């Protein structure tokens, strides 16, 4: 596609995007397309009642081919993007972390599945006073849970924990929290440190 025609389409997309805000919903020019969502996203979002949405886990991006790949349940979807694709909560498309939850507003453009907007799920903010650094954790781990008076908890699924975790950590997969809390916690005062696979 030539640079000029890209620019023309770009300007056109911009106008319909701005129009869609006031109409609260779909831009008039866009065909209504079914929403596709990973089951995990439906716990908090009602994408099944919306349209032109694809929600799932970010798999990969190719800048050379202007495509991103999304995992939705067991299936994969390839969606194209261009300079007019609106990106939220990430500095650039190649920098979106793998496995991150993303929501794409999509349309069909020139026969291709095209992303008008890619929104990366915003990480949960942790208050500064609740954060603990690598050095602090390392110091405690060197002392051990008894001397250091802490319990280090790995929130990832158990198989990930088995394969590799911080020494002295205890497996506490997030989805088994309630079941394990009674067993693991003796009192309300002991320092609990939660970790997982980082910001992603």
């Amino acid at each position, binding site marked *: 596609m030539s640079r000029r025609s890209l620019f023309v389409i770009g300007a056109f997309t911009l106008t319909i995007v701005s129009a869609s805000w006031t109409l609260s919903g779909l831009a008039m020019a866009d065909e209504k397309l079914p929403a596709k969502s990973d089951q995990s996203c439906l716990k908090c979002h009602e994408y099944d009642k919306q349209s032109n949405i694809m929600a799932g886990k970010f798999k990969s991006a190719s800048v050379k081919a202007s495509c991103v790949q999304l995992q939705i349940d067991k299936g994969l979807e*390839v969606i194209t993007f261009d300079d007019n694709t609106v990106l939220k909560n990430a500095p650039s498309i190649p920098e979106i972390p793998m496995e991150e939850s993303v929501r794409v507003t999509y349309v069909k453009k020139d026969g291709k599945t095209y992303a008008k907007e890619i929104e990366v799920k915003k990480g949960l903010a942790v208050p500064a006073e609740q954060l603990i650094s690598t050095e602090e954790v390392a110091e405690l781990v060197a002392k051990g849970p008894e001397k250091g008076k802490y319990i280090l908890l790995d929130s990832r699924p158990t*198989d990930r924990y088995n394969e590799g975790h911080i020494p002295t950590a205890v497996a506490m997969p997030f989805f088994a929290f309630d079941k394990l809390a009674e067993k693991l916690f003796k009192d309300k005062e002991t320092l609990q440190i939660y970790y997982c696979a980082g*910001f992603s």
Partner: protein
Amino acid sequence: MLSPLAARKAEKLGYKNVKVYHAGLPAWKKAGNVTVSNNAAIEDYNKIDASYILLDSRPADQVAKGHIPKAIAIPKEGIDSLKDQFPKFMGASIIVYSEDGVSDDARKAYKTISGWGYKQASILDQGYKGWQSAGKTVATGPAGSKIDYVRKLLPGEVELAVFKGFIDKPSPDTIILDVRNVTEINEGKLPNTMQLPLDELENRISEVPKDKRIIVHCATGARAEMAYTILKNAGYNTGYLRAKIDFDKEKPGTFTIEE
């Protein structure tokens, strides 16, 4: 992403001293700290017949008395002497163990392996003693001396040898599809392949014969996997190559493929 959620939950339940190590495992490893694994990891790998590397860091006489099945002994000369047997795949699961948990020997081997760039290395938390005392099967005599790691293929992935076979000797039932862009193709292409850039694939999919198996390649495997997804969703019998292909600009027609 899960740890902040867990912390919120804990606070709601009335726990008063809750912290989040938000940078988590990646930061922990990056700072040069060790990670530990447990017996269940080894058992899980065996159950699904996954490939992994298990390294015994103890002296040969101790190894001979008893070791974990499938272990490779780290020779007296040290882990470096095994280096050229390590796989190219940096995500390979590697477990080092000694008599007890995190011993100096195990730590040393772990650091060397991590230093080579392997991302999924760990030390068995209770060592051989922990394995033995849990009543797990042990092997006696000398442990293995050769690392035999075969990376398991991902869904849709085609083995490199199979791919090379089709390049050397085309099959009437299979098409090798190159989805790199035109500039890249001008710099060189593999023999016996069809070209169709990934960004045009959706629109021109009818040009791809449906009665043949389509094996996709690009320069690294990233775009090939996407093309595989598009073709699979369109009902094609398809697969892709996850390998790095370089074309020699100096010598047209020459190329290297490696995993």
